[in-house]
């Protein structure tokens, strides 16, 4: 369960770049919540605040009842994050990359090895697991990054534009993964600027524009709310312009 309550974040010397303004929403366990918005809408900033990397100027947010500022390290143990930056260590094998994050989460020995092996198997990385990640394709790297983010079995999972740069086969495989994680009762927050992605996957959608929440609801609710025929039309009409959608 993620709760975001009137969160605001500005950057720049005088706080002139207002990336996130007064944003409130919640994301339930056992659901995939989509953060939909054009580039620059504040998705990454919002996710970084939830991931405790940056501190909101105002408002508060909590994950599984833990405050993202006060209990930041407890939050880090409870969440798995696939961030915008998802660099791997090219000289380490896929398994070593995954194992490293496991040890930082306090795992060791047989438990660490079996968890890593299980994730490698579910993500279809068996053939690659003991090769250096140097020459991996985008899709393969993404899978390693996901395994790394899930090694400590987190109840809450944040994903920042996870489908960026992936081919259609990898996207479908990823979707399958996320549905499975939802089925296990986890809380997933998924950001994207691609509406089809969000429509195909998310139970609830939060539309962000210019750092604010524009609308919240299921796809059907959003269509009804805007009076448009499709989700795409609803998205555009709710944002008030077609700007940024090209990206």
């Amino acid at each position: 369960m993620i709760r975001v309550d009137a969160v605001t974040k500005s950057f720049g010397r005088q706080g002139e770049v207002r990336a996130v303004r007064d944003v409130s929403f919640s994301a339930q366990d056992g659901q995939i919540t989509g953060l939909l918005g054009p580039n620059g809408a504040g998705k990454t900033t919002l996710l970084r605040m939830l991931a405790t990397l940056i501190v909101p100027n105002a408002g508060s947010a909590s994950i599984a009842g833990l405050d993202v500022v006060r209990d930041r390290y407890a939050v880090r143990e409870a969440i798995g994050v696939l961030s915008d930056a998802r660099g791997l260590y090219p000289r380490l094998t896929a398994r070593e990359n995954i194992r490293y994050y496991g040890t930082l989460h306090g795992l060791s020995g047989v438990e660490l090895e079996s968890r890593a092996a299980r994730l490698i198997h579910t993500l279809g990385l068996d053939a690659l697991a003991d090769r250096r990640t140097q020459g991996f394709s985008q899709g393969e790297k993404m899978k390693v990054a996901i395994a790394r983010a899930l090694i400590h079995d987190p109840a809450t999972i944040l994903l920042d534009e996870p489908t960026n740069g992936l081919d259609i086969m990898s996207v479908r495989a990823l979707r399958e993964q996320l549905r499975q994680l939802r089925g296990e009762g986890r809380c997933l927050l998924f950001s994207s600027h691609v509406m089809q992605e969000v429509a195909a996957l998310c139970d609830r959608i939060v539309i962000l524009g210019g750092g604010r929440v524009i609308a919240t609801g299921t796809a059907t609710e959003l269509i009804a709310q805007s009076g448009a025929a499709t989700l795409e039309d609803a998205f555009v009409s709710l944002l008030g312009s077609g700007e940024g959608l090209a990206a």
Partner: protein
Amino acid sequence: MSPQPSAPPRSRIAAVARKELLDTLRDRRTLLVTLLPALVAGPLVLMLMFTVIAGQIDRARELKLPVVGQAHAPALVAFLTRQQVTLTAAPADYEAKVRGGELDVVLVVDDNFASDVASGRGGKVQLVYDRSRDRAQPSIREAEALLRAYNRQWGSQRLLLRGVAPTVGNPLVVDAIDLATPQQSGAFLLFFLAYYGLFAAVMGGMAIALDVTAGERERQSLEPLLMTPARPLELVIGKWLAVATFNATIVIVTLTGYYVTLRFAPLPAVGVPFLFSVRELAWFLIVLVPLVALLPTVMLFMGARSRTYKEAQASASLVIFVVSIIPVVQLVQQRKDPDWIVWIPVSGQFSLLGQVLRGEGVPLAQLAASFAVPVALTAGMLLLVTRLLSRESILAGK
């Protein structure tokens, strides 16, 4: 979805250090460019220096002296020949040849030498040389010494002929006693040893320190790392331990290379008994500990401030330049280091390395003083790097 028990900080620090070392060991190119110079520096530098010195000694021992006007001073010629000097007739353009470095020193006997001596005046000879040529120095000194010796001998003989004791003409009996211990005579050569030891401590950790900071940022693996439960301080300490370990390895390899070369390699005999035994080797390592700890933190700082590896390299080379110029300044000054120098990082270490080489030993109080500032600085720098990693702006600008 069971909550993990929090790992103790120590195990996270160890995990970071282990991973960084493994990562470095896999990086063949960096290993090669860091380890190879460390391995070959000792043998190469020593071989070169020993050969140069042996050459100089040979030149002095087998003095070849071109002479103008040998016929005017047969007694001098006989004296020099008895002293094993090879005399040749000087070419006509001897001045140009001395200037050009082909001849080290030329003896010119004045045309009126015989008549001057016969009439009781001093006989004139000239030594022609170019003092700015280092290679010629031993020959020049040798020629001057021989002429002085001849002068003394001749004078003594004259006094004896007149029934006067030679001490009347030479009341001062100079008996030179060289107080330099064998170690001291070798100390100048071994300056290079101290310098290379110091240099290894500076250079050894650079590549890895920049890779674990600026490199981590550049390949976008820093942000996910900062989202793990590892505290920034734990990350910094873990990375520092890895860099310092690697740095220490480089220093040990470099110095062991010198030790092995001095001990076992067939170096030309130069008559300077070097003392760089296991004892000195151990002292070197102890004296260099503060730098092995401190310099990686400086490199980590440079790396953490930079967005790319390249940017970091530029600032790191500045550090290297400054640190490597300090010993040269100390050497050129040719003064005994003041007592307080041990408090100054780098200068202090260099001064102590010199003491070890001169066989003077290092008093515990001096050693403690040389540790104080670097240890405090190391702690301070680690906190500074931690602050850099905790800043939100570390995420900006990919």
